[in-house]
Structure formats: structure tokens, C-alpha cells
């Protein structure tokens, strides 16, 4: 099942938004089983319930897509901004928010402002520009940025849903999650559950890139086989050695006969995350690619927390040396030690996400590490 038999998330809605009764949206979202599409996959109805319990709530639509391998939020906001704006109004009404924000990369601000200008929204929306940095989309960084501080992750002692922007209960929701809300309000939970699996209903926007014939964004049901998803993007352009699932904080998979769902990916320690799929051609060295991404992530550290600031560059350095052919058996051991050292030690999950990627590389490219330590590389055999 790779084609959807209903209105796509990437087209503007034809029907007007229905008026929901007080408290109705949260029940619909619970029945639908909608979870967040920013990567963490938290049940949306529970987040709304927590925020609705407070007073003078704030709602923030998060469109800061700092992940370089992801294009789904940009694509959604370009093609169907009204769907996102509908979702924002629904969420704001459901939690009785007194302030409503949309956090967007600079390139989309004008486009979305034009869309806002054509609407007569009950709750006015303030658009705030997000920087194009990797960590800018992290929940506490979004709140810091909108609050006028530097858009960097902050220390978390209180829950954002209880004390977020200026200490007020705050709902930060990925823009795709908002679009799904608008769909559920129009078509209902049963319609939503027609796609996906029993445990993971609905669809998600996947960004398929790397060595595929036609890279792009596709709406697909949870549980779709990774092979079928790659085929939607024209199929592998060449022989693949691995696929990166979940983006730069994601996991390398050595195979493609895997369902794209939390359940299906769990044996590999992976999750669909924010729907990023990146195919690695066999002519690329997996170690070199991992070293490159780890170097990028080290560079994107906010440099606030010591273990991330010092540990990530050290990890990238050891990986680079290993990838470049330094025959030092201590290098893989150094990488393993560093992954243990930075885990759970930071204000945000940037170190933990980087560790997820690196650990999967150590497993999936274990043979490649052996080749490099013996002075060879599979890409030489490939040529």
C-alpha cells in the first residue's frame, strides 16, 4: 500500500474548518491516536490536555527545520500553509491560548504572512523568524528565541507545558502535527486511522534523499516498507550500502525490508523520527559519511554544555582519522568511550542524538572499520 486514497497533507483543504464544541478537539485527537511529527512522537492529546489545565496559555507552531536532510516542513508550509494555520487556530482554541506564534525559517516568512493576511482568524498569529541552525528547533530553544533571548536550548527543571514562554503554559507543536490536526477536525478519527497501523495510525511526511532517482517529500502511511518508500522517490539510483533513517540524529540501517514504524524499527534501535530517509550509495564510505555528519553536528553544538562542546569534536576527530585510513586500533575504542561520556549530559538531546548515529555506524559499518584498520576501504573494491 503505497498510494493514499484520500486528500493529501500537501494540498490546501477544499472544505471550511468545522466549528468544534468546547473540548472536542482533544477527544478527537485521542481517538485518532495522533502523535507529534517533530521527531519525539509524543501523544498530541496529552500535551494539549496538560497545557489546557493552566491559564493564559501560549501556542507555538514550530517550523524551524534545522535538520539539513529534512525538507518536509518547508514543503508543507510552501504548498499548504492554510492547513498549518487551521491547525494552529484549532490548537489555540482547544487550550484557550492568549498568544499564538509561528516560528519559521526566514525564507518562508513572507509566503506564510501572505497566507495569514487572507484569513480572518479568531486568534491573531505572530510570525517569528527562526535561524537556520540545527538546534534552533529544539523546544526550549524555540521558546528562548520567541522570548527574545538567543535561540539556544536552556536548562530544564520545569515542564514547558506548565512553565514555558515567560513562565506560561506553552504548547510547542511541529507544523506537520498542526496540519494533521486540521485534517482530523475535518474528516474525523476513523478517517485518520484508515492508513497506518493499529498501534501507529495515520500518515507522515517523509523526506527521501541521497542516492535515489527522484529525491523529494512524500506523504506515506506508518508501517510502509522502506523499500516501497525508496521506490516512491524513483528507487535507488545505484547499489546502496546503508540507509540513514531519522536524520542526522538517526540510525544507519543495513537493509531496506523494514517497516517504517516505531515497532518495525525498534529492533534496530531506530524510530521514524521526523521522517528523514537518506540512501547511501555503495560508492560512498559509511565511515567517511558518519565522520562528516558528526563533524557537522559537533560544529552545530551551542557550546553551552561542556560534554557536548568538548566531546562531540573529539568524537568527530577520531571518526575522521579512522575514515581517512589511520591504522590505529585505539580509534574505535576512543569513539566508544566518548559516546558513553556524553550520553545524558546536556541541556538538550544533541549529544544523545549524535551518539545514536555514531553507535549505529559502529554496528552497521563494523566490517568497514576492520577494512580501514587493515589499510583498505570498500569503496576501493567498489570502483
Amino acid at each position: 500500500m503505497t498510494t493514499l486514497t484520500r486528500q493529501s497533507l500537501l494540498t490546501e483543504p477544499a472544505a471550511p474548518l468545522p466549528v468544534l464544541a468546547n473540548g472536542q478537539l482533544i477527544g478527537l485527537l485521542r481517538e485518532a491516536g495522533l502523535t507529534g511529527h517533530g521527531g519525539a512522537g509524543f501523544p498530541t492529546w496529552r500535551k494539549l490536555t496538560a497545557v489546557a489545565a493552566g491559564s493564559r496559555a501560549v501556542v507555538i507552531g514550530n517550523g524551524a527545520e534545522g535538520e539539513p536532510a529534512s525538507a518536509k516542513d518547508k514543503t508543507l508550509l510552501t504548498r499548504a500553509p492554510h492547513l498549518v494555520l487551521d491547525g494552529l487556530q484549532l490548537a489555540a482554541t482547544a487550550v484557550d491560548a492568549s498568544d499564538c506564534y509561528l516560528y519559521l525559517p526566514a525564507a518562508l516568512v513572507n509566503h506564510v504572512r501572505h497566507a495569514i493576511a487572507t484569513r480572518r482568524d479568531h486568534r491573531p498569529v505572530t510570525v517569528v523568524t527562526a535561524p537556520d541552525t540545527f538546534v534552533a528547533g529544539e523546544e526550549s530553544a524555540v521558546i528562548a528565541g520567541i522570548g527574545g533571548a538567543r535561540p539556544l536550548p536552556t536548562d530544564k527543571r520545569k515542564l514547558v507545558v506548565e512553565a514555558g514562554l515567560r513562565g506560561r503554559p506553552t504548547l510547542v507543536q511541529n507544523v506537520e502535527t498542526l496540519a494533521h490536526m486540521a485534517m482530523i477536525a475535518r474528516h474525523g478519527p476513523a478517517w485518520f486511522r484508515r492508513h497506518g497501523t493499529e498501534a501507529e495510525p495515520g500518515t507522515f511526511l517523509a523526506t527521501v534523499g541521497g542516492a535515489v532517482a527522484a529525491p523529494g517529500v512524500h506523504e506515506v502511511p506508518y508501517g510502509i516498507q522502506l523499500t516501497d518508500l525508496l521506490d516512491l522517490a524513483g528507487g535507488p539510483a545505484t547499489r546502496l550500502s546503508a540507509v540513514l533513517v531519522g536524520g542526522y540524529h538517526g540510525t544507519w540501517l543495513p537493509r531496506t525490508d523494514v517497516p517504517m514504524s516505531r515497532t518495525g524499527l525498534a529492533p534496530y534501535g531506530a524510530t521514524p523520527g521526523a521522517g528523514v530517509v537518506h540512501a547511501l550509495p555503495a560508492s560512498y564510505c559509511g565511515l567517511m559519511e558518519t565522520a562528516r555528519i558528526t563533524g557537522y553536528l559537533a560544529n552545530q553544538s551551542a557550546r553551552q554544555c561542556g560534554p557536548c562542546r568538548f566531546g562531540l569534536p573529539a568524537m568527530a576527530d577520531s571518526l575522521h582519522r579512522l575514515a581517512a585510513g589511520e591504522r590505529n586500533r585505539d580509534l574505535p575504542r576512543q569513539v566508544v568511550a566518548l559516546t558513553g561520556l556524553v550520553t545524558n549530559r546536556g541541556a538538550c538531546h544533541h549529544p544523545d542524538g549524535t551518539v545514536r548515529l555514531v553507535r549505529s555506524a559502529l554496528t552497521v559499518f563494523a566490517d568497514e572499520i576492520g577494512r580501514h584498520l587493515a589499510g583498505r576501504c570498500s569503496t576501493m573494491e567498489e570502483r
Partner: protein
Amino acid sequence: MRLHIDWTACDGRGACVELMPEVLDQDPWGYPIPKDGTRQPTVPPETMPYARKAVAYCPRLALRLLPPAA
């Protein structure tokens, strides 16, 4: 009680590690490592007086004591 470390404030001065070697180790850069591997390590009752000192004396005010997780 649990020890909360504000990593954005911590500068790795090491006073907490000296006061609570039962709870914290030090990494190669001088930052504390919770020995139990958790985000907010549990402080045993006999270590509490030292934990309170660490919170008070941290030059970066990066430490807090929080009630046990519910």
C-alpha cells in the same frame, strides 16, 4: 533527593566532584559525571550534607536538589 545539573551553567570547576565522590566522577575536561549514569543522580541520605554544600558553593550556581522522582 536527586541532583540536577544545569549544564549550560556548569564550567567544570570540580567542587561538587570533590564534595561528593560517591555520586560524581570527573570527565577528562573537568565536568561532573553522575556515577549512576542517570540525568539526575540520586543522592544517598549520608551524602546529603555534602550535596547541600556543593549546591551552595558551586561557583556557577549550576546545582539544584530536587525531590525524588514520583
